[in-house]
């Protein structure tokens, strides 16, 4: 059994905690966010014959990347960024966030969940932004806490990526097609 440390990072209000809530094993309550600033959950993913336990460090979302303690990001095997598809600023911030994460954890696989995919009428992230993210090295997925869309896929990709499987280009392609 393999364990991997995944850091979940996103600006305040992107809904990252509720995104994974239904899909992870959790023993710590949400109040850890407001106290310690991080809450750790577990997601078990099967990759081939391998069982991977993703230890999700759900770091408290704040308004500024400087607020995210570097020590929480240290040693992460992959980064799970969450942005709000209905708020452009949360997408624009991703590059700064990623740089901050790189300083602490090095260049590790990174995925971006463009959340709130169920709110199509308010959606502001266009193909241009998506392409920019992909070319910036992010794996991009659309997710919805409401429908559960993209959540399991995100974890699968993270498990594969941390095991050393090269991120599949077709996955990104799917997002582009979905647009």
């Amino acid at each position, binding site marked *: 059994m393999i364990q991997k440390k995944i850091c979940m990072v996103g600006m305040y209000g992107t809904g990252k905690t509720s995104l994974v809530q239904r899909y992870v094993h959790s023993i*710590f309550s949400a109040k850890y966010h407001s106290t*310690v600033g991080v809450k750790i959950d577990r997601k078990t993913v099967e990759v081939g014959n391998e069982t991977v336990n993703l*230890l999700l460090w759900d770091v408290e979302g704040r308004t500024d990347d400087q607020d995210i*303690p570097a020590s929480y990001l240290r040693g992460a095997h992959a980064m799970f960024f969450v942005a709000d598809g209905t708020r452009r600023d949360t997408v624009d911030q991703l590059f700064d966030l990623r740089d901050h994460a790189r300083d602490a954890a090095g260049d590790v696989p990174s995925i971006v969940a463009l959340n709130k995919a169920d709110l199509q009428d308010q959606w502001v992230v266009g193909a241009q932004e998506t392409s920019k993210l992909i070319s910036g090295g992010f794996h991009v997925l659309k997710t919805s806490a409401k429908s559960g869309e993209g959540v399991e896929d995100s974890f699968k990709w993270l498990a594969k990526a941390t095991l050393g499987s090269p991120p599949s280009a077709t996955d990104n392609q799917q997002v582009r097609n979905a647009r």
Partner: protein
Amino acid sequence: MAHDGAPGAGSGDRTNDVGVRELTELRDLLFGGERRQLDELRRRLDTLEITPEELAEKLPQAIAQRAARDRQLAIALAPTVEAAISESVRRNPHEIATAIFPVLGPSIRKAIAETMSGLVNTINRAIEHSLSVRGIRWRIESWRTGVPFAQIVMRHALVYRVEQVFLVHAETGLLLAHVPEDTEADADLISGMLTAIGDFVNDSFEPRHTGELRGFAAGDVTVLVEPGPQAYVAAVVRGQAPETLPSRLQTTLETIHLQWSNPLSAFEGDAAPFATTRPLLDECIETVVATDQPSSRTGWKRFVWVIPVALAVGALTWWATSGGRRWDAAIARLDAEPGITVVRSERAGGRWNVSGLRDPLAADPGVVLAGMGIDTTDVVARWEPYVSTESALLLARVQRALNPPGGVTLSVNRDAVVARGRAPQAWISRAETLAPALAGVSSVDLSGVEPGLPADMESARAAIEGERVLFPVGSAALDDAGRAIVASVADRVKALTDAARRNRYNVTLQVVGRTDPSGSANENLALSRRRAVAIRDELASRGIAATMLEPNASGSADPLPATAPADRARINRSVSFVVQARPLSGPRGPERVR
């Protein structure tokens, strides 16, 4: 070759040039090889530069040779090595720490253990003086088993259970191993949160990054964290963790760092290689309960030691408490003594100390204590004099001051003194004068004292003074009747002196000789003297002390009264007796109330 000829010389010069060239060629042919070697050597001597290849070849040998010769190499290198190390530490402390961690840990632990040992000894000494029941029990156990007292205290006082031990990868917070196995399904989440909390503490308090989280406690549960460069151990302890636990955890962690060095460095999330650390971690799991001290001894043998100890303790206790009890009883007796007030009584410096107030007329405290079985050589007493108004002391003081004769009895009613009996008028007058000056006495009632001698003396006096020895006319010779009277008087005088001694009177007996009126006065006086002396001698011959007999010649000047004139002449041819008694002056000597 040198050409000393001046420039612009003629054809002779040209011929010379040809010669020189030929000579040079010849020389090259003969010595060319040697000359090139000489040039190369000269070049090397001039430059003295060594190529890196040459240096690499010679350096190890050179260092070894020089180091064997003297310390110059070490002295020369020291500043550079120091600078290199400090630069390395500045740039990447982690590397150095990782490298020396397995070596440094035990040294530091040893140093700390030595310090702690001194501290424990100090505490041990402090505890030695605690005489709680539990402390004594533990001390007996220490004595019985030969285990140091401090360890016994630990064993009893510290009750704890190490419930879980986590081995956690320091950087990622991922769980490497956990014991007991399968007891905590979420050990991986807990180890992650432990790491996060450590980070949180490190990030939250100034100055930042001061060190690692070493533990925290919540209620009965303590989590002890022993940090290492690549992994840390966390132990969940219920109860009071012993001070040895952190060092045990540290040892375990050092062993893991040493033996699992490669898996730790290569760790990428696969905890499988660390399954083999579990036996090490298991050694940290333990439960210590105060009461479960299994013993190989069984039955009564376990308690054999109780008997001599109980006897010894009993004897010591009896000895200690009986001494104390006897002293307490003696002090109570002393305090009850009239005229003695005990203010303080204590055992100090191995002796009994007692102090208080004592009326000078009160009993001797030493005698009282000795009477209660106290060894007075073991007592330090300090008494301040005072005047007691207790009845017994008041009475003693009045007795001492008034010195009443035997016929007088004194009694005390509160602070009033009442005197009864018979006493000479002189004493009554003196007592009336002295009474107002007596300390603590409001009044002395002397109305019950009649002037006179004590009753036993009075009867003897009356009997003696009622006798008279008659003589024939003109004679001082005693007849048989006279002798019988003198014998009777002698007996009564003896009774009187006995009574006087009892009543502390001084008595004298005047032996008064008389004559009838006939004859001249001188003759009569001489005759009366002869009569008095004759009776005195007769009394003295009957055992009466001559010093108390005073012959007194009255002649016919002081006749005894008689109703009939014929009788007057007869009864005055006689010797009669007058008893004179006065109380002995001066104090009665030390007055003891008891």
